């Protein structure tokens, strides 16, 4: 199954960037959006993201627009709710724009990040335990398999006539129960076999391991990240104020 915003190989600046650096950059954008309460700043950041997507990630405007369209109804709802509940038009607009602005870095990240490199980067650059990377790898391998299995179970139940019998909320609950049972048994069986297979390949033999694939952040990656960290602090302590931070989390206290 192909996901809409899954990784697409390429040679853009974002493709070349270390995934962990990109990940931290995404977190900085989210934090920045948290402390931005005026819609003009949020709009500015959103436009900057789009520009970075276009130039840095070589993404099409239509591609980014598609992502924005998906989130637009939710953003609009949040805006309207804030406008009517708090009665502040600008604050409401900022809230809606925030949701749009947070989507673009997410799309840039997912479209330009090779999941394999991400796993290695998390372990080698951010020093996550290898078990964490192994779990991501395994999930990446097994999620489509479990998806097929779930599909097969659902189809088998339809053929048995489950849809005809189990209706309403109680019916749905029962349906979930009889679907989960064989699925869980399948998951447990596969997990046991996989555990046997990796032990057979000496998994966990030593606390550390050799890495044939080595990834690290380049000088430019670090400069990029440093620039964003500096930008964050400049905004937080000069353009933004601690009171904006307060209003973000407790708008009623204004």
């Amino acid at each position, binding site marked *: *199954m*192909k996901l809409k915003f899954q990784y697409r190989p390429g040679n853009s600046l974002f493709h070349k960037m270390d995934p962990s650096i990109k990940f931290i950059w995404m977190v900085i954008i989210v934090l920045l959006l948290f402390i931005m309460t005026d819609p003009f700043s949020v709009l500015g950041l959103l436009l900057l993201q789009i520009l970075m997507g276009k130039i840095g990630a070589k993404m099409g405007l239509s591609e980014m627009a598609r992502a924005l369209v998906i989130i637009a109804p939710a953003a609009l709802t949040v805006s309207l709710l804030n406008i009517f509940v708090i009665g502040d038009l600008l604050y409401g607009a900022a809230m809606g724009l925030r949701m749009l602005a947070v989507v673009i870095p997410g799309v840039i990240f997912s479209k330009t990040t090779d*999941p*394999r490199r991400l*796993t290695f980067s998390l372990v080698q650059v951010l020093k996550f335990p290898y078990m964490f990377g*192994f779990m991501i*790898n*395994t999930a*990446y*391998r097994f999620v*489509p*398999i479990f998806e097929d*299995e779930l599909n*097969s*179970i659902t*189809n*088998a*139940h*339809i*053929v*048995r*006539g*489950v*849809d*005809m*019998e189990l209706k309403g909320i109680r019916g749905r609950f029962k349906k979930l129960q*009889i679907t989960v*049972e*064989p699925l869980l*048994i*399948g998951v447990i069986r*596969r997990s046991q*076999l*996989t*555990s*046997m*297979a*990796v*032990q*057979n*390949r*000496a*998994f*966990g*033999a*030593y606390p*550390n*391991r*050799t*890495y*044939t*694939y080595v990834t690290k952040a380049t000088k430019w990656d670090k400069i990029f990240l440093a620039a964003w960290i500096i930008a964050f602090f400049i905004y937080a302590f000069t353009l933004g104020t601690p009171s904006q931070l307060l209003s973000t989390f407790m708008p009623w206290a204004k």
Partner: protein
Amino acid sequence: MESPSLDRVNLEINDGEFVLIVGASGSGKSTLLFALNGILQHEIGGRIKGHIEVNGKNPTEKEVFEMATTISIVMQDPEVQLTQMTVFDEVVFGPENLLRPKEEIILAAESALKFVGLYEKKDCIVNELSGGQKQRLAIAAALAMNTEIIAMDEPTAHLDPKGTNEVFQVIKKLKELKKTIILVEHKVDNVIELLDEDDRVVVLDNGKIVLNGRPREIFAKHGRVMMDEFGLALPQIVELALRLGITPVPLHIGEVDCSKFDINAIASNRSSKNNIPIITVKDLEFSYGNGNVLNGVNFTIPQGLTTVIVGQNGSGKSTLLQNIIGLLKPTKGKILFNGVELSSLDKKSVFRDIGYVFQYPEHQFVTKTVKDEIEYGLKIRNLDKSIIESKSKEFLEMFGLEKTEDRHPLTLSMGEKRRLSFATMLILEPKVLIMDEPVIGQDRRRTQYLIKLIDKLKSQGITIIIATHDMNFLAQCADNVIVINEGKVIFQGDVVELFNEKRILTTAGLDDPPVHKLATKLGCPEIITIEQFCTCLAKQVVT
């Protein structure tokens, strides 16, 4: 006390030896393999009496990772043993765990990938490989560990003929490396081609080693016992020779002395002239969203006959079956059931008239007891209580499930689960019964049971549709064959015709059974099963 999975097993395997282990399902083959690398003792919690030594190491005392430098196991299911995203990462995973130097790992991985013919795919995503490629990858991963022993547990059980051949080619090369190889395998027709005189065959039955010797001795001398007492499949040529009393018993076609056969009789063509279609598929197209899985498919399913749909894994067989029963909706084209468009029919009546037995029977179970499971379909159709009672009793007995009626369906053995899934479908008296890959991983006894059941259902007028890539099974039960390749029907006709169409077989990655190859060599390409071969010869003897 529970009977042990392995019972007083004494076995010695020499360095560089090739050992084939055969046995019916549940005879202890996998248990034996996993006792050798310590997984059984340390991971599964098996208790061991007696002593095991593998290249000087005792797997009961050593840690599993210590044994992993001595023996590598390739497992049956390609999906459970590969855990990495890319092909290269998978091969280096083991040596990386062992802290081997980076340069050494890269060299070993590249050499292993070249050995199994996957070097060009080293950067590919594992999920995108075919079944055969995945198993070759598992062998490459085992090779990269650089162990003295490689053990394989039915590595081709889930593969189509093309994938099976690919894996056997690699095993043949491994054998030439003079590695110690222990192979558990049901597909004896493929493995017999690999065996040399000084190789070894070990037969397990109920956890005991009942036969242990050279291939010729085991198959020629004890073949009958293997078939009749242990329920095992023999290589077709061996079975044929034993049934015809030909000596010395040839092990494969290359050893057959054709002058010993003189057959002229023509086997009856099983395909009857029934042309009344029960299902008609017209210009069918289907897509999951990214490209067509089925492309302009046209065929008819004749009423009351067995139609087998064959093709490689991923050719579109299961998608086609799910379209036929209405689980998937065609993107284009139509399907007629008894002349009426399927999409216009009420789902309830479709699922009553067309039964579907899934590859994994446990996916179909929806209740907590075997009895409830059998009665479920009748209950939701609001049948009279007394009818339900009498029918469920009849079906419990018919499928030998009366002693298990209060058990949870998921606790049954694989054979019982399979019988229960048939019972739940057949109790509704369907006009058509669809089976998706019913013989994967089944031993000879279970396959023979299924063939008998199919014959019985056919005699009751039920139309059978089966998706499979097992050519022996196809030869024994099909009246009509549809070959599907890359989403297109490339052949529809009878089995004999298919087996003589080499071009179609090659295109679809299929292979005719050895008995047909021999019959063709003898000038009788109409013969496709051992029964037909024997009957023809018997007729000739009589006349």
